[in-house]
Protein backbone atom coordinates (compact mmCIF):
# COMPACT_ATOMS: atom_id res chain seq x y z
CA UNK A 1 0.00 0.00 0.00
CA UNK A 2 2.61 2.45 -0.97
CA UNK A 3 1.15 4.13 -4.04
CA UNK A 4 -1.18 7.08 -3.66
CA UNK A 5 -4.95 6.96 -4.27
CA UNK A 6 -5.13 3.26 -3.99
CA UNK A 7 -8.52 1.69 -3.90
CA UNK A 8 -9.50 -1.05 -1.48
CA UNK A 9 -12.53 -3.10 -2.34
CA UNK A 10 -14.50 -6.02 -0.99
CA UNK A 11 -16.38 -8.46 -3.17
CA UNK A 12 -19.77 -9.74 -2.08
CA UNK A 13 -21.71 -12.66 -3.47
CA UNK A 14 -25.25 -11.59 -2.58
CA UNK A 15 -27.20 -8.37 -2.98
CA UNK A 16 -28.81 -8.60 0.47
CA UNK A 17 -25.35 -8.92 2.11
CA UNK A 18 -24.20 -6.01 -0.02
CA UNK A 19 -27.13 -3.86 1.11
CA UNK A 20 -26.50 -4.54 4.80
CA UNK A 21 -22.78 -3.85 4.27
CA UNK A 22 -23.57 -0.50 2.65
CA UNK A 23 -25.87 0.30 5.55
CA UNK A 24 -23.09 -0.56 8.01
CA UNK A 25 -20.59 1.59 6.10
CA UNK A 26 -22.99 4.53 6.16
CA UNK A 27 -23.47 4.08 9.89
CA UNK A 28 -19.71 4.12 10.42
CA UNK A 29 -19.55 7.29 8.28
CA UNK A 30 -17.16 5.76 5.80
CA UNK A 31 -16.71 7.63 2.59
CA UNK A 32 -17.85 5.10 0.00
CA UNK A 33 -16.08 5.67 -3.30
CA UNK A 34 -18.41 3.50 -5.36
CA UNK A 35 -20.56 0.39 -5.39
CA UNK A 36 -20.47 -1.95 -8.37
CA UNK A 37 -23.23 -4.33 -9.35
CA UNK A 38 -24.07 -6.31 -12.46
CA UNK A 39 -27.70 -5.17 -12.22
CA UNK A 40 -29.65 -2.37 -10.50
CA UNK A 41 -30.11 -3.31 -6.84
CA UNK A 42 -33.44 -2.20 -5.35
CA UNK A 43 -33.05 0.24 -2.52
CA UNK A 44 -29.33 0.87 -3.08
CA UNK A 45 -29.67 4.48 -4.27
CA UNK A 46 -31.44 5.82 -1.16
CA UNK A 47 -28.99 3.89 1.07
CA UNK A 48 -26.05 5.56 -0.66
CA UNK A 49 -27.80 8.90 -0.30
CA UNK A 50 -27.61 9.55 -4.03
CA UNK A 51 -29.66 12.45 -5.34
CA UNK A 52 -32.36 11.65 -7.87
CA UNK A 53 -31.00 11.56 -11.41
CA UNK A 54 -31.65 14.72 -13.40
CA UNK A 55 -31.48 12.83 -16.68
CA UNK A 56 -35.26 12.98 -17.13
CA UNK A 57 -35.15 16.80 -16.95
CA UNK A 58 -32.65 16.71 -19.79
CA UNK A 59 -35.02 14.33 -21.57
CA UNK A 60 -37.91 16.77 -21.20
CA UNK A 61 -35.83 19.68 -22.48
CA UNK A 62 -34.56 17.73 -25.48
CA UNK A 63 -38.08 16.50 -26.19
CA UNK A 64 -39.46 20.03 -26.06
CA UNK A 65 -36.71 21.17 -28.44
CA UNK A 66 -37.70 18.33 -30.78
CA UNK A 67 -41.37 19.37 -30.62
CA UNK A 68 -40.55 22.97 -31.45
CA UNK A 69 -38.06 22.05 -34.18
CA UNK A 70 -40.56 19.83 -35.94
CA UNK A 71 -43.60 22.03 -35.54
CA UNK A 72 -41.99 25.38 -36.29
CA UNK A 73 -39.87 23.82 -39.01
CA UNK A 74 -42.87 22.41 -40.84
CA UNK A 75 -44.80 25.63 -40.29
CA UNK A 76 -42.02 27.60 -41.95
CA UNK A 77 -41.49 25.10 -44.77
CA UNK A 78 -45.12 24.68 -45.70
CA UNK A 79 -46.29 28.26 -45.31
CA UNK A 80 -43.27 30.42 -46.21
CA UNK A 81 -40.46 28.50 -47.82
CA UNK A 82 -42.15 26.06 -50.21
CA UNK A 83 -45.96 26.09 -49.92
CA UNK A 84 -47.58 23.14 -51.66
CA UNK A 85 -51.19 22.08 -51.52
CA UNK A 86 -51.56 18.47 -50.44
CA UNK A 87 -54.94 16.81 -50.90
CA UNK A 88 -56.80 20.11 -50.96
CA UNK A 89 -55.76 20.91 -47.41
CA UNK A 90 -54.66 24.35 -46.21
CA UNK A 91 -50.93 25.11 -46.16
CA UNK A 92 -50.87 25.16 -42.39
CA UNK A 93 -52.48 21.75 -41.71
CA UNK A 94 -51.82 21.12 -38.05
CA UNK A 95 -53.25 17.55 -37.82
CA UNK A 96 -50.84 16.41 -40.55
CA UNK A 97 -47.90 17.84 -38.58
CA UNK A 98 -48.71 15.95 -35.39
CA UNK A 99 -47.20 12.52 -36.28
CA UNK A 100 -43.90 14.07 -37.42
CA UNK A 101 -43.84 16.34 -34.37
CA UNK A 102 -44.32 13.29 -32.19
CA UNK A 103 -41.55 11.37 -33.95
CA UNK A 104 -39.03 14.20 -33.70
CA UNK A 105 -39.92 14.68 -30.02
CA UNK A 106 -39.10 11.05 -29.34
CA UNK A 107 -35.96 11.16 -31.51
CA UNK A 108 -34.56 14.31 -29.87
CA UNK A 109 -35.41 13.12 -26.35
CA UNK A 110 -33.85 9.68 -26.80
CA UNK A 111 -30.66 10.78 -28.59
CA UNK A 112 -30.30 13.75 -26.26
CA UNK A 113 -30.62 11.56 -23.18
CA UNK A 114 -28.11 9.01 -24.48
CA UNK A 115 -25.56 11.71 -25.31
CA UNK A 116 -26.13 13.45 -21.94
CA UNK A 117 -25.70 10.17 -20.12
CA UNK A 118 -22.46 9.40 -21.95
CA UNK A 119 -21.04 12.86 -21.31
CA UNK A 120 -21.98 12.91 -17.63
CA UNK A 121 -20.69 9.38 -17.01
CA UNK A 122 -17.48 9.98 -18.97
CA UNK A 123 -18.30 7.18 -21.37
CA UNK A 124 -17.67 7.16 -25.07
CA UNK A 125 -15.96 5.30 -27.86
CA UNK A 126 -12.43 4.23 -26.93
CA UNK A 127 -12.78 4.93 -23.21
CA UNK A 128 -10.90 2.37 -21.16
CA UNK A 129 -12.89 0.40 -18.64
CA UNK A 130 -11.84 0.86 -15.04
CA UNK A 131 -13.33 -2.41 -13.94
CA UNK A 132 -11.96 -3.66 -10.62
CA UNK A 133 -12.83 -7.28 -11.24
CA UNK A 134 -14.23 -9.03 -14.28
CA UNK A 135 -16.80 -10.92 -12.20
CA UNK A 136 -18.54 -7.63 -11.33
CA UNK A 137 -20.25 -7.82 -14.69
CA UNK A 138 -21.54 -11.30 -13.95
CA UNK A 139 -22.57 -12.36 -10.44
CA UNK A 140 -20.49 -10.41 -7.89
CA UNK A 141 -21.00 -7.09 -6.13
CA UNK A 142 -18.39 -4.81 -4.62
CA UNK A 143 -17.94 -1.76 -2.39
CA UNK A 144 -14.83 0.31 -2.89
CA UNK A 145 -13.14 2.91 -0.68
CA UNK A 146 -10.22 5.21 -1.27
CA UNK A 147 -7.58 3.57 0.84
CA UNK A 148 -5.59 5.32 3.53
CA UNK A 149 -2.86 3.99 5.83
CA UNK A 150 -4.70 3.97 9.11
CA UNK A 151 -8.02 2.61 7.90
CA UNK A 152 -9.87 -0.39 9.29
CA UNK A 153 -11.51 -1.20 5.96
CA UNK A 154 -10.21 -4.75 5.95
CA UNK A 155 -11.84 -5.42 9.27
CA UNK A 156 -15.05 -3.85 7.92
CA UNK A 157 -15.06 -6.11 4.87
CA UNK A 158 -14.42 -9.23 6.96
CA UNK A 159 -17.14 -8.40 9.45
CA UNK A 160 -19.79 -7.58 6.83
CA UNK A 161 -19.37 -10.83 4.95
CA UNK A 162 -17.20 -9.95 1.97
CA UNK A 163 -15.89 -12.97 0.11
CA UNK A 164 -12.62 -11.34 -0.93
CA UNK A 165 -10.75 -8.13 -0.28
CA UNK A 166 -8.51 -6.59 -2.91
CA UNK A 167 -6.58 -3.44 -3.63
CA UNK A 168 -6.08 -1.69 -6.92
Amino acid at each position, binding site marked *: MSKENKIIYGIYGDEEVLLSAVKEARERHYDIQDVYSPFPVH*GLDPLLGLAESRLHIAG*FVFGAIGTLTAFLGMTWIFTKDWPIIFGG*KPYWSVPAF*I*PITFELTVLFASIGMVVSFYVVSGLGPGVKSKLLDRRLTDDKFCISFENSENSDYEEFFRSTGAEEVGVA
Partner: protein
Amino acid sequence: MNHFEFKGSLKTVLLAGILIGVLCLGWTWMIDDHNHTRFWSNFLHNSVFFTGISFTAAFFIAVCITAYAGWHTIFKRVWEAISAFLMPGILLMAIIGLGVYFHWHHLYHWSDTAILDPSNTADFDKVLYGKSSFLNKNWYLGGTIIIVGLWIFFANKLRLLSVLEDNFEDSHFSTHRTMRKYAAIFLPIAGFSSAAIIWQWVMSVDSHWYSTLFAWYATASWFVSMIALTILILIYLKGKGYFHQVKRDHIHDLGKFLFAFSVFWTYLWFSQFMLIWYGNVGEETIYFKTRYDHYPVLFFANIFINFAIPFLVLMRNDAKYKFGSVGIVAIIVLLGHWMDFFLMLKPGIYETAMHAAPAGEAMGEHGHEVAHAAEHVSNFVSGFTMPGLLELGTFLGFLAFFLFVFFTFLSKAPLTPKNDPYLDESLHHHV
Protein backbone atom coordinates in the same frame (compact mmCIF):
# COMPACT_ATOMS: atom_id res chain seq x y z
CA MET B 1 -59.20 -3.99 9.57
CA ASN B 2 -59.20 -6.64 6.91
CA HIS B 3 -62.96 -6.61 6.55
CA PHE B 4 -64.82 -3.67 5.13
CA GLU B 5 -68.07 -2.84 6.89
CA PHE B 6 -70.60 -1.04 4.73
CA LYS B 7 -72.80 0.97 7.03
CA GLY B 8 -73.48 4.32 8.63
CA SER B 9 -72.99 7.65 6.94
CA LEU B 10 -71.46 6.22 3.76
CA LYS B 11 -74.59 4.18 3.12
CA THR B 12 -76.77 7.23 3.81
CA VAL B 13 -74.74 9.43 1.48
CA LEU B 14 -74.88 6.89 -1.33
CA LEU B 15 -78.61 6.33 -0.89
CA ALA B 16 -79.08 10.10 -1.02
CA GLY B 17 -77.02 10.14 -4.21
CA ILE B 18 -79.21 7.45 -5.75
CA LEU B 19 -82.26 9.50 -4.77
CA ILE B 20 -80.79 12.57 -6.49
CA GLY B 21 -80.24 10.47 -9.60
CA VAL B 22 -83.79 9.13 -9.58
CA LEU B 23 -85.20 12.63 -9.04
CA CYS B 24 -83.10 14.00 -11.90
CA LEU B 25 -84.20 11.17 -14.20
CA GLY B 26 -87.81 11.78 -13.21
CA TRP B 27 -87.50 15.51 -13.78
CA THR B 28 -85.86 14.90 -17.15
CA TRP B 29 -88.79 12.63 -18.07
CA MET B 30 -91.28 15.37 -17.17
CA ILE B 31 -89.73 18.17 -19.23
CA ASP B 32 -88.78 15.91 -22.10
CA ASP B 33 -90.02 15.76 -25.68
CA HIS B 34 -92.51 13.24 -26.97
CA ASN B 35 -89.95 10.45 -27.33
CA HIS B 36 -88.29 11.23 -23.98
CA THR B 37 -85.04 11.50 -25.88
CA ARG B 38 -83.17 13.31 -23.15
CA PHE B 39 -84.24 10.84 -20.47
CA TRP B 40 -83.33 7.79 -22.51
CA SER B 41 -80.05 9.22 -23.79
CA ASN B 42 -78.95 10.05 -20.24
CA PHE B 43 -79.97 6.59 -19.13
CA LEU B 44 -78.01 5.02 -21.98
CA HIS B 45 -75.00 7.27 -21.47
CA ASN B 46 -74.55 6.43 -17.79
CA SER B 47 -75.46 2.75 -18.12
CA VAL B 48 -72.87 2.29 -20.87
CA PHE B 49 -70.27 4.25 -18.93
CA PHE B 50 -70.54 2.31 -15.67
CA THR B 51 -71.16 -1.12 -17.20
CA GLY B 52 -68.05 -0.55 -19.29
CA ILE B 53 -66.01 0.41 -16.23
CA SER B 54 -66.96 -2.83 -14.49
CA PHE B 55 -66.19 -4.78 -17.67
CA THR B 56 -62.68 -3.31 -17.91
CA ALA B 57 -62.09 -4.20 -14.26
CA ALA B 58 -62.93 -7.85 -15.00
CA PHE B 59 -60.78 -7.66 -18.11
CA PHE B 60 -57.84 -6.23 -16.20
CA ILE B 61 -58.06 -8.92 -13.50
CA ALA B 62 -57.82 -11.50 -16.28
CA VAL B 63 -54.88 -9.62 -17.83
CA CYS B 64 -53.02 -9.53 -14.51
CA ILE B 65 -53.59 -13.23 -13.82
CA THR B 66 -52.48 -14.23 -17.31
CA ALA B 67 -49.44 -11.95 -17.15
CA TYR B 68 -48.28 -13.44 -13.79
CA ALA B 69 -48.58 -9.95 -12.30
CA GLY B 70 -48.39 -9.63 -8.55
CA TRP B 71 -48.28 -5.93 -7.74
CA HIS B 72 -52.05 -5.53 -7.47
CA THR B 73 -52.79 -8.60 -5.35
CA ILE B 74 -53.42 -6.85 -2.02
CA PHE B 75 -56.14 -4.66 -3.51
CA LYS B 76 -57.47 -7.00 -6.19
CA ARG B 77 -60.73 -7.30 -4.19
CA VAL B 78 -61.43 -3.71 -5.28
CA TRP B 79 -61.43 -4.76 -8.94
CA GLU B 80 -63.38 -7.89 -8.15
CA ALA B 81 -66.04 -5.76 -6.47
CA ILE B 82 -66.06 -3.26 -9.35
CA SER B 83 -66.63 -6.11 -11.81
CA ALA B 84 -69.70 -7.13 -9.79
CA PHE B 85 -71.51 -4.08 -11.17
CA LEU B 86 -71.90 -6.05 -14.41
CA MET B 87 -74.94 -7.68 -12.81
CA PRO B 88 -76.92 -4.44 -12.39
CA GLY B 89 -75.33 -3.34 -15.66
CA ILE B 90 -76.98 -6.11 -17.65
CA LEU B 91 -80.35 -5.07 -16.21
CA LEU B 92 -79.80 -1.41 -17.14
CA MET B 93 -78.77 -2.33 -20.67
CA ALA B 94 -81.62 -4.82 -20.96
CA ILE B 95 -84.03 -1.97 -20.19
CA ILE B 96 -82.52 -0.04 -23.11
CA GLY B 97 -82.77 -3.21 -25.21
CA LEU B 98 -86.42 -3.69 -24.29
CA GLY B 99 -86.92 -0.04 -25.15
CA VAL B 100 -85.56 -0.73 -28.63
CA TYR B 101 -87.74 -3.80 -28.85
CA PHE B 102 -90.98 -2.15 -27.84
CA HIS B 103 -90.20 1.34 -29.24
CA TRP B 104 -90.22 3.04 -25.86
CA HIS B 105 -87.58 5.39 -27.22
CA HIS B 106 -86.03 6.44 -30.49
CA LEU B 107 -82.33 6.59 -29.68
CA TYR B 108 -81.25 4.55 -32.67
CA HIS B 109 -82.12 5.54 -36.20
CA TRP B 110 -81.89 1.91 -37.35
CA SER B 111 -84.65 0.85 -34.99
CA ASP B 112 -87.12 2.65 -37.27
CA THR B 113 -88.78 -0.19 -39.24
CA ALA B 114 -90.28 2.11 -41.91
CA ILE B 115 -86.87 2.83 -43.46
CA LEU B 116 -86.07 -0.86 -43.82
CA ASP B 117 -88.93 -1.69 -46.14
CA PRO B 118 -87.72 -1.78 -49.79
CA SER B 119 -91.26 -1.25 -51.09
CA ASN B 120 -91.45 2.04 -49.19
CA THR B 121 -89.38 3.95 -51.77
CA ALA B 122 -89.78 7.32 -50.12
CA ASP B 123 -88.14 6.40 -46.81
CA PHE B 124 -86.14 3.31 -47.75
CA ASP B 125 -82.60 3.51 -46.39
CA LYS B 126 -80.26 1.22 -48.30
CA VAL B 127 -77.30 1.63 -45.90
CA LEU B 128 -79.28 0.77 -42.80
CA TYR B 129 -80.99 -2.03 -44.68
CA GLY B 130 -77.54 -3.47 -45.35
CA LYS B 131 -76.60 -3.20 -41.70
CA SER B 132 -79.88 -4.58 -40.43
CA SER B 133 -78.57 -8.12 -39.94
CA PHE B 134 -76.49 -6.72 -37.07
CA LEU B 135 -78.38 -3.59 -36.13
CA ASN B 136 -81.83 -4.92 -35.36
CA LYS B 137 -83.94 -5.06 -32.23
CA ASN B 138 -83.55 -8.82 -31.72
CA TRP B 139 -79.78 -8.78 -31.76
CA TYR B 140 -79.61 -5.58 -29.72
CA LEU B 141 -81.45 -7.21 -26.84
CA GLY B 142 -80.14 -10.74 -27.42
CA GLY B 143 -76.55 -9.66 -28.04
CA THR B 144 -76.53 -7.50 -24.94
CA ILE B 145 -77.77 -10.36 -22.79
CA ILE B 146 -75.47 -12.97 -24.36
CA ILE B 147 -72.31 -10.85 -24.29
CA VAL B 148 -72.77 -9.17 -20.91
CA GLY B 149 -73.97 -12.52 -19.61
CA LEU B 150 -70.66 -14.06 -20.70
CA TRP B 151 -68.77 -11.24 -19.00
CA ILE B 152 -70.76 -11.82 -15.81
CA PHE B 153 -70.01 -15.54 -15.94
CA PHE B 154 -66.25 -14.98 -16.16
CA ALA B 155 -66.17 -12.05 -13.73
CA ASN B 156 -68.12 -14.06 -11.15
CA LYS B 157 -65.96 -17.11 -11.71
CA LEU B 158 -62.75 -15.12 -11.14
CA ARG B 159 -64.19 -13.38 -8.09
CA LEU B 160 -65.60 -16.50 -6.47
CA LEU B 161 -62.43 -18.52 -7.11
CA SER B 162 -60.41 -15.72 -5.56
CA VAL B 163 -62.63 -15.72 -2.46
CA LEU B 164 -62.54 -19.53 -2.34
CA GLU B 165 -58.75 -19.44 -2.32
CA ASP B 166 -58.85 -17.66 1.06
CA ASN B 167 -60.00 -20.69 3.03
CA PHE B 168 -58.26 -23.27 0.92
CA GLU B 169 -54.53 -23.57 1.47
CA ASP B 170 -52.82 -25.66 -1.14
CA SER B 171 -49.15 -25.90 -1.99
CA HIS B 172 -49.95 -26.52 -5.64
CA PHE B 173 -52.12 -23.40 -5.90
CA SER B 174 -54.74 -25.43 -7.74
CA THR B 175 -57.36 -22.67 -7.28
CA HIS B 176 -55.05 -20.15 -8.84
CA ARG B 177 -54.35 -22.51 -11.74
CA THR B 178 -58.08 -22.82 -12.35
CA MET B 179 -58.37 -19.03 -12.29
CA ARG B 180 -55.57 -18.82 -14.84
CA LYS B 181 -57.53 -21.05 -17.23
CA TYR B 182 -60.69 -18.97 -16.89
CA ALA B 183 -58.71 -15.75 -17.28
CA ALA B 184 -57.00 -16.99 -20.45
CA ILE B 185 -60.31 -18.06 -21.98
CA PHE B 186 -61.91 -14.76 -21.03
CA LEU B 187 -59.29 -12.55 -22.70
CA PRO B 188 -60.05 -13.26 -26.39
CA ILE B 189 -63.79 -13.37 -25.67
CA ALA B 190 -63.56 -10.00 -23.93
CA GLY B 191 -61.50 -8.50 -26.73
CA PHE B 192 -63.90 -9.36 -29.54
CA SER B 193 -67.18 -9.08 -27.66
CA SER B 194 -66.42 -5.64 -26.21
CA ALA B 195 -65.89 -4.33 -29.75
CA ALA B 196 -69.22 -5.76 -30.91
CA ILE B 197 -71.06 -4.39 -27.90
CA ILE B 198 -69.61 -0.90 -28.43
CA TRP B 199 -70.71 -0.95 -32.06
CA GLN B 200 -74.25 -1.64 -31.10
CA TRP B 201 -74.51 0.37 -27.88
CA VAL B 202 -72.52 3.45 -28.79
CA MET B 203 -71.39 3.67 -32.41
CA SER B 204 -74.77 2.80 -33.89
CA VAL B 205 -76.32 6.07 -32.63
CA ASP B 206 -74.57 7.52 -35.69
CA SER B 207 -76.11 4.69 -37.63
CA HIS B 208 -74.74 5.52 -41.08
CA TRP B 209 -71.26 6.20 -39.86
CA TYR B 210 -68.65 3.69 -38.84
CA SER B 211 -65.02 3.61 -37.81
CA THR B 212 -62.94 0.50 -37.25
CA LEU B 213 -60.98 2.22 -34.49
CA PHE B 214 -64.03 3.26 -32.54
CA ALA B 215 -64.29 0.18 -30.33
CA TRP B 216 -60.72 0.52 -29.08
CA TYR B 217 -61.15 4.20 -28.51
CA ALA B 218 -64.27 3.67 -26.38
CA THR B 219 -62.68 0.77 -24.49
CA ALA B 220 -59.63 2.91 -23.72
CA SER B 221 -62.01 5.52 -22.35
CA TRP B 222 -63.62 2.91 -20.08
CA PHE B 223 -60.23 1.66 -18.99
CA VAL B 224 -58.90 5.07 -17.98
CA SER B 225 -62.11 5.73 -16.04
CA MET B 226 -61.75 2.38 -14.27
CA ILE B 227 -58.16 3.16 -13.21
CA ALA B 228 -59.22 6.65 -12.06
CA LEU B 229 -62.06 5.20 -9.96
CA THR B 230 -59.71 2.59 -8.48
CA ILE B 231 -57.28 5.30 -7.41
CA LEU B 232 -60.05 7.38 -5.81
CA ILE B 233 -61.54 4.35 -4.03
CA LEU B 234 -58.15 3.28 -2.69
CA ILE B 235 -57.37 6.79 -1.44
CA TYR B 236 -60.79 6.92 0.25
CA LEU B 237 -60.42 3.50 1.85
CA LYS B 238 -56.90 4.29 3.03
CA GLY B 239 -58.23 7.46 4.60
CA LYS B 240 -60.75 5.31 6.48
CA GLY B 241 -57.96 3.12 7.83
CA TYR B 242 -58.33 0.15 5.51
CA PHE B 243 -55.63 -1.16 3.19
CA HIS B 244 -52.71 0.06 5.27
CA GLN B 245 -50.38 -2.22 3.26
CA VAL B 246 -51.28 -0.38 0.09
CA LYS B 247 -48.30 1.91 -0.16
CA ARG B 248 -47.39 4.79 -2.36
CA ASP B 249 -45.66 2.34 -4.69
CA HIS B 250 -49.03 0.75 -5.56
CA ILE B 251 -50.54 4.19 -6.14
CA HIS B 252 -47.50 4.99 -8.26
CA ASP B 253 -48.22 1.99 -10.48
CA LEU B 254 -51.87 2.99 -10.82
CA GLY B 255 -50.71 6.53 -11.60
CA LYS B 256 -48.53 5.12 -14.37
CA PHE B 257 -51.52 3.26 -15.79
CA LEU B 258 -53.58 6.45 -15.60
CA PHE B 259 -50.85 8.34 -17.43
CA ALA B 260 -50.10 5.65 -19.99
CA PHE B 261 -53.68 4.87 -20.91
CA SER B 262 -54.58 8.55 -21.13
CA VAL B 263 -51.85 8.79 -23.76
CA PHE B 264 -53.12 5.57 -25.37
CA TRP B 265 -56.64 7.02 -25.50
CA THR B 266 -55.26 10.18 -27.12
CA TYR B 267 -53.35 8.10 -29.64
CA LEU B 268 -56.53 6.29 -30.66
CA TRP B 269 -58.59 9.48 -30.67
CA PHE B 270 -56.06 11.20 -32.90
CA SER B 271 -55.54 8.20 -35.19
CA GLN B 272 -59.27 8.07 -35.82
CA PHE B 273 -59.51 11.82 -36.29
CA MET B 274 -56.50 12.26 -38.56
CA LEU B 275 -57.30 9.45 -40.99
CA ILE B 276 -60.87 10.68 -41.39
CA TRP B 277 -59.71 14.30 -41.74
CA TYR B 278 -57.07 13.31 -44.29
CA GLY B 279 -59.28 10.94 -46.26
CA ASN B 280 -61.91 13.67 -46.46
CA VAL B 281 -64.78 11.35 -47.39
CA GLY B 282 -68.11 12.99 -46.65
CA GLU B 283 -69.74 9.96 -45.05
CA GLU B 284 -66.87 9.76 -42.59
CA THR B 285 -66.10 13.41 -41.89
CA ILE B 286 -69.72 14.12 -40.95
CA TYR B 287 -69.02 12.62 -37.52
CA PHE B 288 -66.33 15.18 -36.75
CA LYS B 289 -67.99 18.02 -38.64
CA THR B 290 -71.07 17.73 -36.42
CA ARG B 291 -68.97 17.82 -33.30
CA TYR B 292 -66.62 20.54 -34.53
CA ASP B 293 -69.45 22.82 -35.65
CA HIS B 294 -72.01 22.32 -32.91
CA TYR B 295 -69.98 21.05 -29.96
CA PRO B 296 -66.71 23.03 -30.23
CA VAL B 297 -66.29 23.54 -26.49
CA LEU B 298 -66.72 19.88 -25.62
CA PHE B 299 -64.72 18.79 -28.66
CA PHE B 300 -61.59 20.71 -27.66
CA ALA B 301 -62.14 20.35 -23.91
CA ASN B 302 -62.21 16.60 -24.45
CA ILE B 303 -58.64 16.59 -25.77
CA PHE B 304 -57.41 19.11 -23.24
CA ILE B 305 -58.92 17.41 -20.18
CA ASN B 306 -58.22 13.84 -21.15
CA PHE B 307 -54.79 14.34 -22.68
CA ALA B 308 -53.06 17.55 -21.67
CA ILE B 309 -53.93 17.47 -17.97
CA PRO B 310 -52.91 13.87 -17.17
CA PHE B 311 -49.93 14.15 -19.54
CA LEU B 312 -48.47 17.33 -18.09
CA VAL B 313 -49.42 16.80 -14.44
CA LEU B 314 -48.47 13.15 -14.14
CA MET B 315 -45.31 13.41 -16.24
CA ARG B 316 -43.04 13.93 -13.25
CA ASN B 317 -42.21 10.87 -11.21
CA ASP B 318 -43.19 12.32 -7.82
CA ALA B 319 -46.58 13.53 -9.09
CA LYS B 320 -47.53 9.87 -9.53
CA TYR B 321 -46.55 9.13 -5.92
CA LYS B 322 -48.50 11.88 -4.21
CA PHE B 323 -52.09 11.01 -3.37
CA GLY B 324 -53.08 14.65 -3.86
CA SER B 325 -51.92 15.06 -7.44
CA VAL B 326 -52.92 11.55 -8.56
CA GLY B 327 -56.32 11.94 -6.88
CA ILE B 328 -57.10 15.30 -8.47
CA VAL B 329 -56.10 14.08 -11.91
CA ALA B 330 -58.22 10.95 -11.34
CA ILE B 331 -61.30 13.09 -10.58
CA ILE B 332 -60.70 15.32 -13.63
CA VAL B 333 -60.10 12.39 -15.96
CA LEU B 334 -63.12 10.46 -14.67
CA LEU B 335 -65.37 13.43 -15.43
CA GLY B 336 -63.51 13.95 -18.69
CA HIS B 337 -64.20 10.45 -19.94
CA TRP B 338 -67.82 10.66 -18.85
CA MET B 339 -67.94 13.77 -21.05
CA ASP B 340 -66.17 11.84 -23.80
CA PHE B 341 -69.04 9.35 -23.84
CA PHE B 342 -71.47 12.27 -23.83
CA LEU B 343 -69.75 13.48 -26.99
CA MET B 344 -69.88 10.03 -28.56
CA LEU B 345 -73.60 9.56 -27.92
CA LYS B 346 -75.51 12.83 -27.80
CA PRO B 347 -74.82 14.31 -31.27
CA GLY B 348 -76.01 11.14 -32.99
CA ILE B 349 -79.05 10.81 -30.77
CA TYR B 350 -79.91 14.48 -31.27
CA GLU B 351 -79.58 14.08 -35.03
CA THR B 352 -81.91 11.08 -34.95
CA ALA B 353 -84.42 13.03 -32.87
CA MET B 354 -84.28 15.93 -35.34
CA HIS B 355 -84.85 13.64 -38.31
CA ALA B 356 -87.70 11.92 -36.55
CA ALA B 357 -89.40 15.20 -35.76
CA PRO B 358 -90.34 16.68 -39.18
CA ALA B 359 -91.77 13.36 -40.35
CA GLY B 360 -94.03 13.22 -37.38
CA GLU B 361 -96.94 15.55 -37.81
CA ALA B 362 -98.69 12.75 -35.96
CA MET B 363 -96.26 13.09 -33.08
CA GLY B 364 -98.36 15.78 -31.52
CA GLU B 365 -97.35 19.09 -30.05
CA HIS B 366 -94.13 17.84 -28.49
CA GLY B 367 -92.77 16.88 -31.88
CA HIS B 368 -92.67 20.54 -32.81
CA GLU B 369 -90.35 21.37 -29.96
CA VAL B 370 -87.70 19.08 -31.38
CA ALA B 371 -88.45 20.28 -34.90
CA HIS B 372 -88.10 23.82 -33.67
CA ALA B 373 -84.76 23.01 -32.11
CA ALA B 374 -83.73 21.47 -35.41
CA GLU B 375 -84.11 24.81 -37.16
CA HIS B 376 -81.52 26.30 -34.84
CA VAL B 377 -78.90 23.60 -34.76
CA SER B 378 -76.14 25.88 -33.61
CA ASN B 379 -78.19 26.96 -30.61
CA PHE B 380 -77.34 25.82 -27.17
CA VAL B 381 -79.58 22.92 -26.21
CA SER B 382 -79.03 21.96 -22.60
CA GLY B 383 -78.74 18.23 -22.23
CA PHE B 384 -77.75 17.76 -25.85
CA THR B 385 -75.03 20.18 -26.84
CA MET B 386 -73.80 20.57 -23.26
CA PRO B 387 -74.28 18.48 -20.12
CA GLY B 388 -76.84 20.33 -18.02
CA LEU B 389 -77.46 20.11 -14.30
CA LEU B 390 -79.89 17.24 -14.84
CA GLU B 391 -77.12 15.31 -16.62
CA LEU B 392 -74.73 15.91 -13.75
CA GLY B 393 -77.40 14.86 -11.24
CA THR B 394 -78.07 11.69 -13.21
CA PHE B 395 -74.32 11.02 -13.28
CA LEU B 396 -74.15 11.44 -9.50
CA GLY B 397 -77.08 9.07 -9.11
CA PHE B 398 -75.47 6.40 -11.25
CA LEU B 399 -72.12 6.91 -9.53
CA ALA B 400 -73.79 6.48 -6.14
CA PHE B 401 -75.58 3.36 -7.38
CA PHE B 402 -72.30 2.03 -8.76
CA LEU B 403 -70.49 2.68 -5.47
CA PHE B 404 -73.38 1.20 -3.49
CA VAL B 405 -73.09 -2.07 -5.39
CA PHE B 406 -69.31 -1.85 -5.18
CA PHE B 407 -69.19 -1.42 -1.39
CA THR B 408 -71.82 -4.11 -0.90
CA PHE B 409 -69.65 -6.62 -2.74
CA LEU B 410 -66.46 -5.32 -1.16
CA SER B 411 -67.85 -6.02 2.31
CA LYS B 412 -68.61 -9.64 1.40
CA ALA B 413 -65.00 -10.83 1.41
CA PRO B 414 -61.80 -10.02 3.30
CA LEU B 415 -60.05 -7.01 1.77
CA THR B 416 -56.70 -8.71 1.37
CA PRO B 417 -56.65 -12.20 -0.14
CA LYS B 418 -54.90 -14.67 2.13
CA ASN B 419 -53.57 -17.52 0.02
CA ASP B 420 -52.89 -15.82 -3.26
CA PRO B 421 -49.49 -16.99 -4.55
CA TYR B 422 -48.55 -13.39 -5.39
CA LEU B 423 -49.52 -11.88 -2.03
CA ASP B 424 -45.95 -11.71 -0.76
CA GLU B 425 -44.73 -10.02 -3.92
CA SER B 426 -47.50 -7.47 -3.62
CA LEU B 427 -46.72 -6.73 0.03
CA HIS B 428 -43.09 -6.01 -0.85
CA HIS B 429 -43.91 -4.11 -4.00
CA HIS B 430 -41.31 -1.44 -4.52
CA VAL B 431 -40.64 0.77 -7.49
